[in-house]
């Protein structure tokens, strides 16, 4: 994992001091709430329905056990004993006092963490593949590039007041596990026939009220020009992105309105100019960062043998582990989706337990996933049973990864000031309706995603089944959609028809799964069946 040097540490320390000063000025009444708002937002501090919410950055979703343990301690000390892992690989605390916020940032800085640019119209925390450095199908480890991005985007002076927020994801596998094409910029590290690494830039994707899949803008940008290309792409957006309407201000609207070809032309023109300025960190800097992401000390002769005689353990292994690049090792997914639970929530004790497991069994590393789960990336298969027992005792052995119980949901109207409807109770009811694990496994991979408003933090557009909460004349109403997907086959969901109330949406989801079970052919997932037979049979079952 990357470790701060004195420069990195000085930057987060400076931020803590700056924010402490800003909070003091606010509490003393020297600045108004209007003036304070953009300042606190740049430190991830939102004023929500009931309290302040603090969003802590987890750069490219990677954590050490020490960092994870502190996240648990913060939950105990400053919140109500819980943390909430988000679809952007971050963690949020929902019950924060303004006067505590500078102390929390100071605690975070003590373990090389921060809340920098987790809100506001700036470049947000870069996300990545949660299996980076571990997955069997990886072409290039994206983490060194993600760290380069983290540093470049931190306190970038030109891009702090963009037309709208800006999200970058970077991956290095053919399999896209980071919904890369649904970001403002998605970077895929690829190799050409000569074996050279290049950055493929997808620009202008996004969810929200106008979901769009990003077109390819840069085909093969050399890694040592990645920052310069980003400077160019962002500058064109900063200058020409719409500022007259916040709902049309994301870069996807600019790219859509002027067209990918014209946007590309402008970026290339700016890129040619930027290249003359020498803004790019040198190769030695990328090499220095790469040094922190060497493979951990894997045991050469680790065994692939597993005793699967315990049926519950066998189910969990089958569902929640993923192929590792090294023989004898595996990737463990810890589902934060217990039956009837709040997706992404973990108690302070659970967070600390996961930290302990990472320290003992996963080379001191954890990842947060955009599906609101936790990953132990480097686990020896011989340790799996012990890990599973410890997880099980803490309520963390939910064997439902990528099944219908593994629901993504935003905080919704229970917490969020922007929401139109509650998301959590709907997630809990669906999770409870499909509590039986055998039934979930029968349904197979089924990604269900719930957003409590059009901003789509719950990624409903990309759900095989998507649910969007809206406000209909003061009553919560839920729209249903099918056919969304992220990854290589990225697609956007289609709305089924009129919406439902809270219980009606649960029934509708169940009817849809019945149609799938009746119509599927061998090996088809829900998504495949929907794509083959279309909406009509589902509509008939749901509304007929």
């Amino acid at each position, binding site marked *: 994992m990357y470790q701060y*040097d004195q*420069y*990195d540490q*000085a*930057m987060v320390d*400076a931020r803590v001091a*700056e924010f402490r000063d*800003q909070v003091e000025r606010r509490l003393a009444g020297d600045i108004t709430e209007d*003036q304070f708002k*953009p*300042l606190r937002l740049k430190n991830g501090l939102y004023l929500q329905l009931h309290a302040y919410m603090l969003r802590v950055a987890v750069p490219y979703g990677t954590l050490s056990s020490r960092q994870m343990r502190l996240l648990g301690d913060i939950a105990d000390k400053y919140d109500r004993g819980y943390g909430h892992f988000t679809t952007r690989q971050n963690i949020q605390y929902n019950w924060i006092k303004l006067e505590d916020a500078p102390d929390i940032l100071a605690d975070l800085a003590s373990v090389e963490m921060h809340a920098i640019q987790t809100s506001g*119209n700036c470049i947000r925390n870069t996300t990545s593949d949660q299996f980076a450095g571990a997955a069997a199908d990886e072409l290039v480890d994206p983490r060194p590039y993600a760290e380069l991005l983290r*540093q*470049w985007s*931190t*306190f*970038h*002076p*030109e*891009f*702090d*007041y*963009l*037309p709208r927020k800006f999200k970058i994801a970077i991956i290095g596998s053919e399999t896209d596990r980071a919904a890369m094409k649904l970001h403002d910029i998605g970077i895929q590290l690829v190799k050409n026939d000569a074996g050279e690494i290049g950055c493929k830039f997808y620009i202008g994707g996004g969810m929200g009220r106008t979901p769009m899949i990003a077109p390819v803008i840069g085909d093969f940008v050399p890694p040592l020009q990645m920052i310069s290309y980003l400077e160019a792409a962002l*500058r064109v957006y*900063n*200058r020409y992105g719409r*500022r007259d309407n916040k709902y049309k201000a994301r870069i996807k609207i600019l790219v859509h309105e002027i067209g990918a070809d014209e946007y590309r032309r402008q970026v290339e023109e700016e890129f040619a*100019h930027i290249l003359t*300025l*020498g*803004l790019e*960190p*040198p190769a*030695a*800097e990328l090499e*220095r960062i790469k040094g922190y992401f060497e493979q951990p000390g894997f045991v050469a002769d680790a065994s692939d043998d597993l005793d699967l005689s315990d049926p519950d353990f066998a189910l969990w292994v089958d569902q929640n582990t993923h192929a590792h690049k090294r023989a004898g090792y595996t990737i463990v997914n810890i589902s934060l989706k217990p039956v009837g639970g709040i997706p992404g929530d973990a108690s302070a004790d659970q967070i600390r337990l996961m930290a302990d497991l990472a320290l003992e069994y996963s080379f001191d590393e954890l990842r947060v996933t955009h599906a609101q789960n936790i990953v132990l990336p480097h686990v020896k298969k011989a340790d799996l049973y012990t890990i599973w027992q410890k997880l099980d005792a803490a309520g963390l052995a939910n064997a439902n990864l990528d099944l219908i119980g593994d629901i993504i949901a935003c905080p919704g109207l229970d917490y969020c000031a922007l929401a139109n409807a509650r998301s959590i109770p709907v997630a809990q009811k669906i999770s409870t309706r499909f509590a039986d694990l055998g039934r979930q496994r029968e349904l197979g991979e089924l990604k269900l995603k719930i957003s409590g408003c059009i901003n789509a933090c719950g990624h409903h557009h990309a759900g095989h089944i998507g649910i969007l909460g809206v406000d209909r004349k003061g009553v919560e109403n839920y729209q249903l959609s099918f056919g969304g997907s992220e990854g290589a086959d990225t697609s956007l969901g289609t709305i089924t028809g009129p919406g439902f109330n809270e219980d009606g949406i649960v029934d509708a989801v169940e009817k849809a799964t019945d149609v799938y079970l009746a119509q599927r052919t061998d090996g088809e997932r829900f998504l495949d069946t929907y794509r083959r037979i279309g909406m009509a049979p589902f509509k008939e079952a749901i509304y007929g």
Partner: protein
Amino acid sequence: MVDQTLRYRSDEPVSDPAVTVDAFADQSNATAVRIEPGDDARALLPHLDRIALVEVNFPVYGDGRGYSAARILREHGYAGELRAVGDVLLDQLSHMRRCGFDSFAPEQPISAEAADKAFATWPEVYQKTVDGRPAIWAKRHPA
């Protein structure tokens, strides 16, 4: 207005009124020009040698186009005064300075002491811009 301007240059201030970008092209004797957020700073590039003052207006602090305008001018060699005017707030000064601004005329006055403190916010910087400060990567890898 003049006494509220924070200025970090040793030359004499320009007394000419700043004209709009459109008017500037037609006034061959004008030495001061004012950029609005929607103006293309590149339109000034052919005339940089006769400009002594560029004012970049920030009607609202959240409109960040002026940061790009400033950098573009500096990147193309503009050496005259570059002044941020309008809704310029204390907490924005350090970023503006990094983008090449060297004078500030905020609507709400900012004391010189407060401004100095703001400029000192960041002990280091991650990016190379036009302010001459070495980026952290340059310090890590001295040539």
